[in-house]
């Protein structure tokens, strides 16, 4: 079974630029999550999708972050404009349904200069 795919793996941008991350979850997984992990901390949930609907985006900075999940499969997370404090690893995860085991992708490491 293929795992969660993410791209790119690394991205370096300057502040005020925009950036987008892509995630392809495990086939058949209805729930998709985006997490932000700052160095030395645990992952923090940014947004959770159930199929193509948003379940929770309470911690998503909506003035600069946006996310969508087209046709309930792939998802993109966008930051526009980026700030220095957005430097982090962005992790995508999926699960069959909520409350169950989440499977994580390798993450995208973002550095904002």
């Amino acid at each position: 079974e293929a795992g969660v795919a993410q791209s790119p793996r690394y991205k370096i941008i300057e502040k005020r630029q925009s950036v987008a991350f892509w995630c392809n979850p495990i086939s058949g997984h209805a729930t998709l999550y985006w997490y932000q992990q700052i160095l030395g901390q645990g992952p923090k949930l940014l947004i959770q999708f159930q199929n193509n609907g948003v379940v929770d985006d309470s911690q998503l900075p909506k003035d600069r972050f946006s996310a969508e999940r087209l046709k309930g499969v792939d998802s993109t997370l966008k930051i526009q404009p980026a700030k220095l404090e957005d430097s982090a690893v962005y992790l995508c995860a999926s699960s069959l349904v909520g409350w169950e085991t989440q499977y994580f992708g390798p993450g995208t490491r973002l550095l904002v200069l």
Partner: protein
Amino acid sequence: SQQGEEDPQALSIQEGENATMNCSYKTSINNLQWYRQNSGRGLVHLILIRSNEREKHSGRLRVTLDTSKKSSSLLITASRAADTASYFCATDGGDYNQGGKLIFGQGTELSVKP
């Protein structure tokens, strides 16, 4: 906000020794999960323990859950150098209306020396 707090923050042991990591949380839960993260990589799921379970085993891993104390522990027996990683506990907050989102602690950084 952080739900789980791991203790210790860092642990260094010799190969063959046992490693114990603890996690405390604040609200009721439906389940608690432990994940491992090797440096520069994504998280790998280790064990899920439900609120009505007290102990669970998986290979060299043993997880206990005490809901009265709102705490859990992860024991790795006969540790290997390959166990070197960060270990996180994650809870779901206990509210099905939250859709099962996980709240992670800060993690315990385990170093196993050969």
